[in-house]
């Protein structure tokens, strides 16, 4: 027993040191990302909290199944504790995400699939707690909230399937942002369609030049409302087949990238990128990110087991009062 206690103690200290290390690494090890600046560091916190929310939901559902199966109070305590810890992480992920989005993308909320999913998760957690507080009988509270938890879990696959189809755009990396744009980009040709639209932005192809290994594409960009017109020169590395220079759209923090070039026919595939794309391709960032994931997972497990123990203890105390008539 004391061995286990000592092991627990050691794990707790290790977790504390680990998390402190991650916070330090987040500012000292992770490099700035072009276009994001220091705001890019948030992925070390934001992404792990978001996926722990999902893990918490699954853990809570598993405990609910076990409770309905065996009707043990410990399983109910596990389900509640996981949901409570999940709710905490859900709030953290949502607020950190909104803060970041407001700085980088200029809007805190865009009905992006991930935003939708996490908002619905937040609502499900809230509904779960509301249900628990509305049921007076203890046994009934445990049973019905477990049923609701599982029933909600059944709808999750559909939400994950439907959410990407809700809005045609996404704020999250890899896809362009502005309303109506797609992830596919557009092909513009010197000898064909030279003018096209990416979302609300009108692009006009002016020329394609080869400078050694680089193909430089000249594009005239007109922002919506014809407020800003600019000539951008994104480039493309021919040897690696990857976009090289990605200039920013005037007045916005989105980047114009050349995704493919066909020099012989004078064609180029242009697309919009949100800053943050390719953030994890830096190995220092990647390993800090992975360490952060592990740290947050440990933090979640520690939090919910602690909370479950507290809930069980409360239950036992209440029982002891029944049995021995101790004053409350």
């Amino acid at each position, binding site marked *: 027993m004391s061995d286990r206690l000592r092991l627990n103690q050691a794990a707790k200290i290790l977790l504390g040191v680990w998390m402190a290390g991650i916070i330090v690494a987040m500012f000292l090890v992770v490099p700035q990302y072009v276009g994001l600046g220091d705001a890019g560091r948030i992925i070390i916190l934001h992404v792990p909290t978001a996926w722990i929310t999902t893990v918490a939901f699954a853990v809570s559902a598993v405990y609910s199944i076990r409770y309905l199966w065996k009707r043990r109070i410990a399983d109910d305590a596990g389900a509640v504790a996981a949901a409570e810890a999940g709710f905490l992480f859900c709030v953290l992920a949502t607020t950190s995400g909104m803060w970041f989005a407001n700085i980088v993308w200029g809007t805190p909320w865009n009905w992006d699939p991930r935003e939708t999913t996490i908002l619905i998760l937040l609502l499900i957690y809230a509904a779960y707690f509301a249900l628990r507080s509305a049921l007076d*009988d*203890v*046994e009934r509270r445990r049973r019905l909230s477990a049923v609701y938890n599982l029933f909600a879990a059944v709808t999750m696959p559909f939400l994950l399937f439907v959410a990407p189809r809700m809005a045609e755009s996404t704020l999250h990396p890899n896809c362009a942002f502005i309303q109506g744009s797609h992830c596919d980009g557009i092909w513009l040709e010197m000898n064909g369609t030279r003018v096209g639209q990416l979302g609300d932005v009108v692009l006009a192809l002016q020329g394609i030049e080869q400078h050694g290994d680089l193909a430089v594409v000249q594009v005239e960009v007109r922002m919506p409302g014809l407020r800003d017109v600019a000539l951008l020169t994104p480039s493309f590395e021919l040897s690696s087949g990857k976009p090289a220079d990605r200039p920013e759209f005037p007045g916005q923090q989105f980047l114009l990238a050349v995704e493919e070039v066909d020099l012989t026919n004078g064609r180029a595939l242009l697309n919009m990128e949100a800053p943050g794309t390719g953030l994890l391709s830096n190995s220092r960032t990647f390993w800090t990110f992975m360490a952060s994931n592990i740290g947050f997972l440990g933090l979640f497990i520690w939090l919910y087991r602690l909370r479950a123990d507290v809930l069980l203890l409360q239950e036992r105390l*209440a029982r002891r*009062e*029944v049995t021995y008539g101790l004053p409350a």
Partner: protein
Amino acid sequence: MTNVTDYLCLTVSNVAIEYGTRRVLAGISFQVRAGETLVVAGANGSGKSSLLRVICGLQRPTRGEVTIEVGNALLRPVDALPLLGWVAPDLQLYRELTALENLAFFAAVRGIRCTRADLEALLAEVGLDGRGDDLLAAYSSGMTQRLRYAYALLHRPRILALDEPTVTFDTRGVALVEQVVAQQRQHGITIIATNDPREERFGDYILRLGR
């Protein structure tokens, strides 16, 4: 349906009932066999009604269990619904329906085929002849109590649980209860919960609850 001559035994083993922090029953055990009548006596709040609800599978005991042995099968109350009949002040039927509609509905969900004449005969048995087409909302409390007997006897249960059997009854009503209990003695078990000492005469055994 099961044969009325099948062996029948109701076992209550170590049943405890608690409401939150309030303990109502602290572990009670007994057996009743076909042909026997048990009276559960006790003051208000002694747990009589809760015990009857547990026997009928309407409530889970906090600890312990109730089993019903019929023929060579051992059943929990929730699986033995066709065997159980319950009359209690808590038993409410549909007020917006007539007595006959109520009985026809319960017969239908139980899978009992019966005609209007059968149901009218049942109503006559409990002293409600000619009132079958009245809405329950228009029933007096005594008539409602009579209809509860019709509801409970509809499927001729082997185990009849009567909670406060004569509440709101006049002398003719009390005679009805006597007749029902006597009939039930032929083929089944009767359990009566009461705080009226006059009703203790129904029982072969008396179980007194409360301290």
